């Protein structure tokens, strides 16, 4: 039945910006402090207080606009969105309406269905509302710490045709804002929230179907659930000969369903009009160029560079570039060491494993690129084997000491001149006459057994290649 309909999705993302202070006052934006401790006359909406625009917010919006190929408006306007709610101290939200700062952008996504360009209608700046704390014994209370926190709303065209495309778009957008450093991307704390406009139409139909706006989707997993549920719901209505009505629906994470919040008729008339307390925002060509210069390398460009400059497989490049901090670590490591593939193996392997085990972000990795490069150098010059290296890595992680110190202290330098351990080898051969006989009878695989025994006796310090050669000689009876 679902195959009869094409799904049409547009997304509205609210990204909280990482500025230190709020969008229209100097209060701190730190999360999780004592209620109402980060407030002032402006964000409390006291009589007589006036907003003053935080230039950094504009800068962040411009960066995001440039990263998504938007046109940056030389003149944009802040408007008041009027409605009553206890978490909204002024009785209006300052947002942008008719003339937003960014328009006409695009984002390219990849899914199993292939690649696709998703249009970005607009990006605008606005202030967040406060938070209601419901307490049955004391009634409801209002915390205005979050009020006036800067948000950026990024509105896509209705260009997505499946939940997978929606997820790919969201992940790409998330990656970009985090890369730009304009948003911390924390979904749990609500730093990156998404509303989805979903409609369906019979294949081939030109006009869009009536859409529902799904609110409150705060994870990539839920977006698929919410869209799938909504598509099924709308298809059921159409199949039964009914009409989908335009409404806002709330996604319920517990049941995985959506339920009606308000219909179009009940929708607020927000009475938008230009905020007379703020002058038109003028963005000069120089400002835009400066922002363009300061734009960091974005994931797509980074992947291509890693492949080209560091000669690593596309898969590695994509994994490494997925997060900016990870990519920066890898970049620093290769610049110090030079071998792209060896470095990517270590960053994707040991480094990730250890971070996961200690639940750390790469920014807090105790083994710096300098330390890791130092250790890889000791592999290159045969001071240690790859196997011992893992031991050295763990020791660096624990102690914070560099590789050379650890190799020295723990006597981990591998033995290349095997004359010193020849007696030990002879002893092992003498102790295992049966295996020696079997080997000599043609069971070559037993070489590994002897290597293992010697390594055990020498605590792994023997140079593996040299050891193999010597053992072969001795077992051959030479």
């Amino acid at each position, binding site marked *: 039945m679902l195959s009869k309909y094409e799904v049409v999705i547009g997304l509205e993302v609210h990204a909280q910006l990482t500025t230190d202070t709020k969008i229209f006052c100097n209060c701190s934006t730190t999360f999780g402090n004592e209620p109402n401790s980060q407030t002032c*006359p402006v964000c*409390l909406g006291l009589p*007589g207080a*006036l907003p003053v625009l935080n230039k950094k917010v504009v800068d962040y919006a411009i960066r995001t606009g440039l990263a998504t190929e938007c046109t940056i408006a030389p003149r944009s306007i802040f408007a008041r969105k009027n409605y009553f709610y206890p978490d909204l101290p*002024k009785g209006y939200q300052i947002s942008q309406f008719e003339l937003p700062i960014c328009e006409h952008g695009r984002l390219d996504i990849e899914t199993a269905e292939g690649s696709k360009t998703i249009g970005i209608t607009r990006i605008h700046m606005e202030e967040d509302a406060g938070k209601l704390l419901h307490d049955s014994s004391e009634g409801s209370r209002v915390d205005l710490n979050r009020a006036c926190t800067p948000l950026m709303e990024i509105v896509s065209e209705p260009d997505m045709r499946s939940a997978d495309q929606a997820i790919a778009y969201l992940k790409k957008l998330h990656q970009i804002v985090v890369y730009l450093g304009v948003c911390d991307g924390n979904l749990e704390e609500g730093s990156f929230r998404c509303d989805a406009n979903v409609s369906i139409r019979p294949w081939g139909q030109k006009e869009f179907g009536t859409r529902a706006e799904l609110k409150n989707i705060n994870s990539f997993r839920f977006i698929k659930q919410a869209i799938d549920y909504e598509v099924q719901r709308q298809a059921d209505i159409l199949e039964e000969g009914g009409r989908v009505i335009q409404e806002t629906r709330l996604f319920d994470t517990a049941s995985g369903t959506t339920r009606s919040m308000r219909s179009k008729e009940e929708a607020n008339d927000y*009475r938008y009009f230009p905020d007379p307390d703020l002058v038109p925002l003028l963005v000069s060509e120089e400002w835009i160029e400066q922002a363009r210069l300061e734009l960091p390398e974005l994931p797509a460009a980074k992947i291509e560079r890693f492949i080209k400059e560091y000669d690593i497989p596309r898969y590695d490049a994509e994994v490494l570039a997925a997060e900016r901090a990870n990519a920066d670590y890898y970049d620093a490591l290769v610049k110090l060491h030079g071998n792209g593939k060896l470095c990517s193996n270590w960053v994707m392997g040991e480094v990730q494993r250890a971070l996961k085990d200690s639940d750390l972000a790469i920014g807090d990795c105790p083994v710096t690129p300098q330390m890791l490069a130092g250790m890889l150098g000791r592999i290159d010059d045969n001071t240690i084997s790859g196997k011992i290296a893992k031991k050295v890595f763990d020791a660096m992680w624990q102690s914070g000491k560099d590789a050379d110190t650890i190799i020295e202290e723990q006597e981990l330098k591998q033995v290349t001149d095997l004359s010193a351990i020849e007696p030990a080898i002879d002893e092992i051969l003498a102790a295992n006459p049966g295996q020696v006989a079997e080997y000599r009878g043609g069971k070559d695989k037993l070489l590994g057994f002897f290597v293992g025994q010697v390594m055990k006796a020498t605590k792994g310090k023997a140079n593996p290649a040299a050891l193999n050669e010597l053992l072969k000689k001795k077992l051959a009876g030479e």
Partner: protein
Amino acid sequence: MQLTDLTIHQLHDLLREGKTSAQEVTRAFLDRIAATDERVNAFITVCQQESLQQAAAADARLKAGDGAPLTGIPLALKDIFITEGLRTTCASQILNNFVPPYNGTAVAKLKEQGAVILGKLNMDEFAMGSSNENSAFGPVRNPWNGDCVPGGSSGGSAACVAARQAVATLGTDTGGSIRQPAAHCGVVGLKPTYGLVSRYGVIAYASSLDQVGPITRDVEDCAILLGAVAGYDPADSTSVDQPVPDYRATLKDGVKGLKVGLPKEYFIEGLDPAVKQAVEKAVDTLRGLGAEPVEVSLPHTDYAVACYYLIATAEASSNLARYDGVRYGQRVDQDRGLIDMYMQSRAAGFGPEVKRRIMLGTYALSSGYYDAYYLKAQKVRTLIRQDFLDAFNQVDVILTPVAPTPAFRIGEKTADPLQMYLSDIFTIPVNLAGTCGMSLPCGFSQEGLPIGLQLIGRPFGEETLLRTAYAFEQASDWHRQQAPL
């Protein structure tokens, strides 16, 4: 002559010379308030103790030779100015218990100079009105005739100066709210160019029109007080970043060769004959001083009142949304839910004129009406501004009456809001144009009520305004007349 009859500059000289003290002056004014305010009702709050403490501090500063022009000068503020620790009501029931935790910029500037704040003055609720009858604290009475209104919305600020209850006051002017009451009370009032004085800490009525300005006994005081509060404020995005001239320095430069525009649209039928006569005499006086009267045209004048009542009410409907009973001010909660609390609090908290303007403004911004009302009004506003800029290509100042009639009787126009709105017909265009205008005494009606002369200047042309007003004042003695109180 009594201390309460003196001007800022006269008192400043006496204080500096040690011939009186700030405490003595303050006590004189407090006594005068006590003796007269039952009849005038200019004050909502009198700061008996605080003002004397401020006066003592001012005396110490004067003694140390560190006196500024306003040190120890007793002033009073329209109750629209946010004052830290001092109740600020905006003459509304909804803010009757509101004690702000901060000072606005203009107030902070006065305090830095060591001015003494005698109290907070009555006004039309949220500055909405032309008669000061829309106050939760009762009407203000005109010191020249207690049966008449003082004008509005800064009626308390003008009546207070006329009644010699303070040396000077600050008011605000959105459509004439400084100039019209100043005219009706026979004192000097100036509405600065939009952006000259910070609006930070001034309760907003219509943000794109509101300006803070002085109401004083003479033009020199007006220059002093304007200079004290003017200037760029980073806390107000609409304030303009440019240096403030020394308004006193050019006061005496005269009007020789000054081109004075007389807009033909302002000398219309319905203009009270006494007003017409007084204004025409003022033109003669200026001509006699060497100025050159020229007829000009402001062709879009007819649309100004309609335009104003769309823009001002639209902005007000949004500005007043914050008075919802949630965080401060009066709350009426009968435990019937949030919406009910909003409705009861606002129904009980706002007076009828405020409600009327909130409804009007809400309507003008509503979807489906926005283009026809708000947007069109903005376009008309641009035309009105252009009218003035065109006229200022020909003349240096424009001269008009302030109001079509002298002060009317209390209750005379309350039944007909439209009639009331027309009392600001000559002042409103100046706010829409964003330029500066001032009112100064130019005569009396047969009933002995003051008549005001309006001078309108180029944007940031306050120096020219003050210089013209000063020349006129020197050639007349209207400002020396005292209300019989």
